[in-house]
């Protein structure tokens, strides 16, 4: 947006000085300074993210089963074998992976959509001050602030078949269901997972949109008011379009976090998730840790990573193109 305008003075300062040969040391310091500043971050990223990732990729080409985990060097190379198993959608392993992938996509779209919708609606409704707004805002942030484990375990407690609150309300009190439903096993587990995910995730959208609203110049609203636009119209014509750049980032971040979320399904369902809620992160966990086949597990993870890279790339390409067009 404004980056190019900002960069100018810096550019003048740094290489400008470099043109004077007498100040070589100064030049070196200036050129090296940004690298020095980046060095700690770079080293950590290498240590914790990039190198392990590279090793993980190497693992995906090996036959790393229980017979070899003790001494990885001796594990035989399996070429693309692990990948072939993962994408052979006619065989059970590939089929299960594909199923898990679709479940995850469906879940992520719904969860991100609902988080965004609720978060935006709440932020817009709370844009103007009213009595109790501060309290309500604090309250709304509680689900986000709670540590994942505590939040999810509370939902497990509520979703129990025999003694849970959800069935108590739906079945015992409202008589909506003929029989108490199962939420932690079977088909309903998808909705249970979605509920928990949205409960935990929407405040983040709320927070970001609230912040985004602060950047909308008041003059826009005043001009619209002069044109005779009422509150609803102002929201439609000014608020929502102005939030577009915010949404671009928000939706992407929510998407990546939700897609890769491990903690929520793991705490909710344990090591073997019901088929209807078999998210890909837990699926891969099971494929590698529970069945002790780290090669196949790694291959699946690499595929997942490639998918996310492509989706993110395309997403950024399309949204920024759209934005550039809108800016003109």
């Amino acid at each position, binding site marked *: 947006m404004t980056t190019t305008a900002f960069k100018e003075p810096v550019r003048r300062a740094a290489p400008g000085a470099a043109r004077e040969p007498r100040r070589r040391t100064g030049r*070196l310091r200036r*050129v*090296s300074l940004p*690298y*020095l500043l980046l*060095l700690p971050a*770079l*080293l950590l990223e*290498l*240590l914790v993210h*990039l*190198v*392990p990732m*590279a*090793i993980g990729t*190497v693992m995906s080409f090996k036959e790393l*089963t*229980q*017979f070899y*985990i*003790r*001494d*990885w*060097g001796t594990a035989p190379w399996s070429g693309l074998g692990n990948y072939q198993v993962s994408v052979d959608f006619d*065989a*059970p*392993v590939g089929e*299960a992976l594909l199923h898990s992938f679709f479940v995850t996509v469906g879940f992520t779209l719904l969860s991100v959509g609902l988080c965004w919708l609720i978060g935006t609606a709440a932020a817009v409704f709370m844009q103007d001050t009213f009595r109790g707004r501060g309290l309500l805002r604090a309250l709304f942030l509680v689900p986000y602030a709670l540590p994942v484990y505590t939040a999810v375990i509370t939902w497990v407690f509520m979703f*129990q*078949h*025999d003694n849970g609150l959800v069935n108590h309300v739906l079945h015992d009190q409202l008589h909506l269901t003929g*029989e*108490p439903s*199962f939420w*932690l*096993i*079977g*088909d309903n587990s998808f909705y249970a997972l979605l509920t928990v995910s949205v409960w935990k995730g929407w405040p983040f959208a709320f927070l970001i949109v609230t912040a985004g609203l602060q950047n909308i110049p008041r003059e826009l609203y005043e001009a619209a008011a002069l044109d005779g636009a009422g509150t609803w119209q102002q929201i439609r014509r000014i608020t929502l379009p102005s939030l577009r750049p915010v949404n671009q980032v928000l939706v992407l971040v929510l998407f990546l976090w939700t897609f890769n979320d491990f903690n929520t399904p793991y705490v909710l369902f*344990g*090591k*073997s998730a*019901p*088929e209807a809620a078999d998210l890909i992160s837990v699926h891969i966990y*099971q494929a590698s*840790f*529970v*069945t*002790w*086949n780290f090669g196949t597990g790694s291959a699946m993870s690499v595929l997942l990573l490639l998918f996310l890279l492509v989706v993110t790339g395309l997403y950024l390409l399309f949204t920024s193109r759209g934005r550039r067009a809108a800016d003109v």
Partner: protein
Amino acid sequence: MRSIRAAAVGAVTLSLALAATACGGGSSTGGGSNDSPKTLTYWASNQGASVAVDKKVLQPELDKFEKQTGIKVELEVVPWSDLLNRILTATTSGQGPDVLNIGNTWSASLQATGALLPWDAKNFARIGGRDRFADTALGSTGAQGKDPAAIPLYSMAYALYYNKKIFAEAGIARPPATWAELTADSKKIQAKGKSALGAEGSNLSENIHHVFVFAKQHGADFFTADGKPDFTSPKVVEAVKSYVDLMAKDKAIPTGDAEYAQNQSVSDFAKGKLAMLLWQSAAANLKSQGMSEDAYGIAPVPVISGKPGSGTQVNSAVMGINMAVFKNTDNLDGATRFVKFMTSDEEQKILNTAYSSIPPVKSAQADAAFGTPATAVLKDTLAVSAAALPQVASESQFETAVGTAVKALFADAAAGRAVTADSVEAKLQKAQQQMPAA
């Protein structure tokens, strides 16, 4: 600029070099050593009501060991949810304890990794010889024909725990000995407004232990003689179906139990909501929940007909905890001495009493403490009618794959969906195809 680049390149090379060594694995020292003879680390499994209880039970014994030998044992009680993962990471990295407890059903799987010390004749001699241990217990310590990967520490067996008061109210004179009797008794119990039989439908291991026994009773096996998975033979399908039918058709197991995975059924039983429970060595557990020993009776797990015995009359898996030594320990002598200490008659009596299990050490078994009617049932079962789970390298995958299939079948039954031979076979087919090719 150049120096920066050099530094960056250096950093990358360093990390890659580390990575390369990482790939080489951390456990190049195969044989173990005696570099630090004064300390041992010991991972105990969670046997008591909680981790804290275990520490209270074990610490005095470890102190005793230290007094005798001067070796200090660092104890860590690892919860079951973490134990296998911790063992796996320890195996991969070579950074683990010296001595550890494993579930005896994992023996063959862990043996295949080659990380555990094999108990050959020489090592056995150091702990008093192979003959000290009961054969049933030794049958669950690794693949047949190989030196055991672990030593039996506590033995357990399944039994039928029944609530005496509920049985009396329902007019049941003696505990059911066959599944048909159990189903009939369940109807009487339900007529009194109580639940009949408990189960942990979402607990993969529990599912496996039960379908394994059902398969035995139907004359079937999950693995062929040469260790290949064979989950879809008609008899296996029938066996799995008849276990799930306890909920789906016979309605003996309440549907709510389909989502149990954290021993809620034990707690239901202790609270008197449930008349019967198939459990392994539950006494200490029930006591900690405030159920007095007079309130329940213990009987052998039912069979299809006749009396418990071998073959199709098997009514329990050989359950228990084994003790293993990591091959790359730096205190090999200390580790074997510790195993010897823990399997000594005296310690066996103390520990197995505390955990209401049966000593796998024959001389300790004879002690009067294990002659009560309650333990007699467990002891007889172990001696006469218990069979070891398949001792194959892919046992842990089997537990996951088939355990998950049974969990899904219970979920179907709970949701009121029909559980048919076809649906059972389909689930088992899928489980079988997820097994490693080897």
